[in-house]
């Protein structure tokens, strides 16, 4: 039956190797690639436009642009005031939103009974994440500016300072922190919880020693990215009284006076410069400020990735 074997092989080879041109599949594949490239193209054009606008500033001023404060003169104006303001606001956001957000996520995932009320809360947190940021600005103006003033941190601005800004942005990013943290906690396999409970751990001990360490990389990444979001927010700050023009603190002002005084933030400076009547502000300074803003966000995101990778290895 030797010939029979050869015949079978030939037949099978013909059947298996007979290539059909999958036109539909190819068109689909290339179509998808085209869509991907077009979205990338928009990004590249945008970045190219900004960077080319920013180059004259950096060429003329160098690092001086980053270390100089606000000024009415485009020759000497820089973003240092804005960077300090943005970092201070983000720090307030972190201090307020992290514990509340992660705590809320732990409660929702580990303790809350699965009933109608919990699902109602859960759904509304998701809805809150989609509320336009300007709405939070109105909330901040109505509540946090007054609150900050009432507790004595109002300073000369009457509450329109980094504390009310930080609180407002904290509320803005809180739903996102809760959602990302809850997802990270949910991703921890149930077998880990069973193992912990099985050796006589209390629910809190299971959360503290097993669930949180396992969820930490996810929580960390989510929250750092959320901070980056807060760092780039503009609209709510404008509503709650961020300074969009030049201001100066007295040379002998104390730390508290500076902290409770007028402030500005990087995205707000971009906004205000881009609508200045003096041409240089909009043409070269605003793009340069955007480059600084993007650089900070890029560093933050890279930091999030590094932190996550490092944490995952310590198992």
């Amino acid at each position, binding site marked *: 039956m030797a010939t029979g074997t050869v015949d079978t092989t030939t037949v099978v080879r013909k059947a298996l190797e007979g290539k059909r041109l999958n036109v539909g599949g190819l068109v689909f594949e290339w179509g998808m690639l085209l869509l991907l490239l077009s979205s990338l193209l928009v990004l590249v054009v945008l970045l190219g436009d900004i960077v080319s606008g920013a180059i004259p500033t950096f060429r003329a001023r160098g690092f001086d642009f980053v270390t100089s404060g606000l000024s009415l003169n485009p020759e000497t104006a820089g973003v240092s005031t804005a960077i300090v303001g943005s970092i201070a606001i983000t720090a307030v956001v972190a201090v307020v939103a992290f514990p509340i957000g992660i705590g809320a996520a732990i409660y929702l995932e580990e303790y809350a009974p699965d009933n109608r009320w919990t699902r109602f809360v859960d759904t509304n947190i998701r809805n809150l994440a989609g509320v336009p940021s300007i709405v939070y600005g109105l909330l901040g103006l109505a509540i946090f500016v007054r609150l900050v003033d009432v507790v004595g941190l109002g300073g000369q601005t009457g509450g329109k300072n980094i504390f009310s800004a930080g609180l407002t942005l904290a509320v803005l990013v809180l739903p996102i922190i809760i959602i990302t943290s809850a997802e990270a906690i949910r991703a921890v396999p149930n077998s*880990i919880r069973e193992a912990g409970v*099985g*050796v*006589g751990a209390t629910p809190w001990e299971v959360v503290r*020693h097993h669930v949180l360490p396992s969820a930490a990389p996810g929580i960390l990444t989510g929250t750092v990215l959320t901070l980056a979001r807060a760092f780039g927010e503009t609209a709510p700050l404008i509503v709650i009284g961020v300074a969009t023009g030049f201001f100066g603190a007295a040379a002998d002002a104390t730390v508290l006076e500076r902290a409770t005084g007028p402030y500005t933030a990087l995205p707000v400076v971009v906004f205000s410069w881009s609508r200045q009547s003096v041409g240089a502000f909009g043409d070269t300074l605003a793009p340069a400020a955007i480059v600084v803003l993007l650089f900070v966000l890029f560093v933050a995101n890279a930091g999030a990735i590094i932190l996550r990778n490092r944490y995952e290895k310590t198992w």
Partner: protein
Amino acid sequence: MDVIDSADPAARAATPGESAATAPDEAETFVLRVEGLNAFYGDFQAVAEVDLDIRGNEITALIGPSGCGKSTVLRCFNRMNDLIEVARVEGSVRYHGVDLYGPNVDAVEVRRRIGMVFQKPNPFPKSIYDNIAFGPKIAGYQGNMDDLVEESLIKAALWTEVNDKLRESAFALSGGQQQRLCIARAIATSPDVLLMDEPCSALDPIATLRIEELMTELKRDYTIIIVTHNMQQAARVSDRTAFFTVDAEREQRTGVLVEFGETATMFTRPTQQKTEDYITGRFG
């Protein structure tokens, strides 16, 4: 927490038993007595009217087809079903005479005395050492932790394989080693009873054999209850066997206990037709 320090599980167990009305000799013979146990998940009744007496220093096997509720019964012994929100238990499960579902019983204390090994090896994502040290640490163990870790690993027949890599991740171990690590982890809190929920179902035959040998070793110190799909395994390791099946006469797929007795008798002269059908492979 004062009873934790005692090294002898029997002495510890006797302390809560004093308050019970049960006769002391009975509480000593039977480590666990189940009476009229009904377990529910929401509206679904998983197990109905189970009566079961577990003797000390024996291996009791719970066997039966899938969905007959044997794992549910096992999880009633250390209140693991508490983790499932809709789960509900009726009837009594008495441990040395104390009802585990009594109003003042702390489930955490129950689980320190009644340890558990799960179907799939589930070591913590930590080092081998920390896997074992965690239970004693949270229980407030005062002695030398290094010694306890070593002792637990020796008892679980894992020491010689891991003694030079205690600080390495538990995930670096093979499946069978991970399961023995989980046994060592359960032993480390010096429990009285070990519950094993199909501990070999994710393991190869050689790893299975090692676990079975280990169980035979361990029953000198512990009372072991094992759920298994594998009838040969039940026949090989257990002293007594409880056969569960799904009650066809009920509306829901509720599990019931068909027969309970010495393993040798059950496998040679079962009293129930259903048991004989199952062990001879005619159904299930």
